[in-house]
């Protein structure tokens, strides 16, 4: 009697979602008098009594333990400043590298300006000061390949459930692909295969809010590469490789 919208519908800020106090406002919603209104452009998600919106647009907000791709934009006294496609820049300290760096060492030997790195966010403060690390499995400087940029809110669809989507693209195109949570994606492989992978990723990004996505991407990849894809073969996914 009281939910005014359908599940998975696009809603805009200020739109009434429910007019009943029995529902709990989740992310991207707020209560006004006895109504529940949306506070972001997004898709409605109704889970029992909780109503929230899943944002469709907006910049990447850094979260702890996210794996991101960053670009070195400045070399500091003991670290590097990185652009991570967010309103704030992140700092990768020279203590957070796998090898030991001497005090007066030339830092550009390790990461130079305009180098891309895969790094993990270790800490985010209330003022959005961000610390990075490359001291974990698979975190490193990126060489060769290319970096493409997609909307950060499409990243979960590009990765897929337990990495199924990105694994499928990797299988079909034989490319190394690293998806940063910030929407930057590293693709490295044979030039033609790289192109197919990039097309597939862009296709996912533009069709992410429609159903039957996996099937369509599978068809697309089979058509482009001419190789049959076996969907069953899934490994464990840790966001890298």
């Amino acid at each position, binding site marked *: 009697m009281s939910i005014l919208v359908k599940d998975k519908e696009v809603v805009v800020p200020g739109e009434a979602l429910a007019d009943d106090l029995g529902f709990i406002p989740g992310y991207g919603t*707020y209560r006004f008098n006895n109504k529940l209104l949306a506070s972001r452009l997004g898709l409605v998600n109704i889970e029992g009594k909780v109503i929230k919106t899943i944002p469709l647009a907006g*910049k990447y907000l850094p979260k702890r333990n996210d794996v991101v791709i960053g670009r070195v934009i400045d070399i500091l006294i003991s670290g590097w400043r990185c652009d991570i496609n967010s309103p*704030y820049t992140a700092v990768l300290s020279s203590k957070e590298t796998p090898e030991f760096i001497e005090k007066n060492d030339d830092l550009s030997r390790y990461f130079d300006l305009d180098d891309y790195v895969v790094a993990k966010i270790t800490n985010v403060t209330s003022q959005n000061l961000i610390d990075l690390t490359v001291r974990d499995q698979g975190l490193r400087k990126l060489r060769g390949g290319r970096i493409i940029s997609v909307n950060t809110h499409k990243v979960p669809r590009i990765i897929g459930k337990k990495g199924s989507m990105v694994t499928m693209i990797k299988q079909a195109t034989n490319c190394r692909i690293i998806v940063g949570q910030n929407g930057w994606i590293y693709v490295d492989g044979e030039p033609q295969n790289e192109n197919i992978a990039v097309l597939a990723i862009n296709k996912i990004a*533009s*069709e992410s809010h429609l159903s039957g996505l996996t099937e369509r991407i599978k068809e697309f990849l089979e058509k482009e590469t001419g190789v049959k894809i076996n969907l069953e073969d899934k490994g464990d996914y840790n966001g890298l490789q």
Partner: protein
Amino acid sequence: MVYSKRLDGRGFDELRPIEAKAGVIKNAEGSAYFRMGKTIAYAAVYGPREMFPKFKQDPKKGVIRCNYNMMPFSGAGERVRPGPSRRSKEISFVTDKALIPTVDLEDFPNAVVDVYIELPQTDAGSRCCGINAAAIALADAGIPMRDIVASVAVGQADNQILVDLTYEEEHLPEYTECESKDVADIPVAIIPSTGQISLLQMDGIIEKDALMKALHKAKEVISKISEVQKNALKEKYAAESIENNE
């Protein structure tokens, strides 16, 4: 003679034809097009991003920075001198203040959201048109906000209360014979869900009763503008799905 029929044949409570579109500028985080009759506004939102100059940063919350600009060839024929003027600075300022009550930038300390409003063609009500476009663009950019502000001008000419005045109506005694030489032009911005007013300016002379009547008219018609704004955002995603299904 009382102004009994509007110059463009509209009803007294009727808006000019309005049209809106979201996502018209690819490079921007969010953007919108808004048209009210012959007034056209484009708004582009960039950010949240780092605020420069640094001394303008606010460590408690993000800041919104509007820039209103009329293009040189807009207006009534005379070339508009490019660059900031006293008028455009003032309008940038009031636009800013009209939008602030709805946006929530607590998550973006030290950051700025830049809103650029450009008007390629104007015929009165340009600040309202700019606010309408800017509000859509902010929502399109995924900025957390309580509501989409809608704005319209109301007023009085020749003792007749009017909604959404044109340039001719703002200068009515120059165009037709009037009993009263007094003309009032009142741009209003309203937060639709609460009915709160976030912009209220006036140019001209009006009596208290007439002013209250005009403001009530504004509240009545604002829902129509709000509807167009919301549909523009929804259509953007509907259009995307149609494109991709083919």
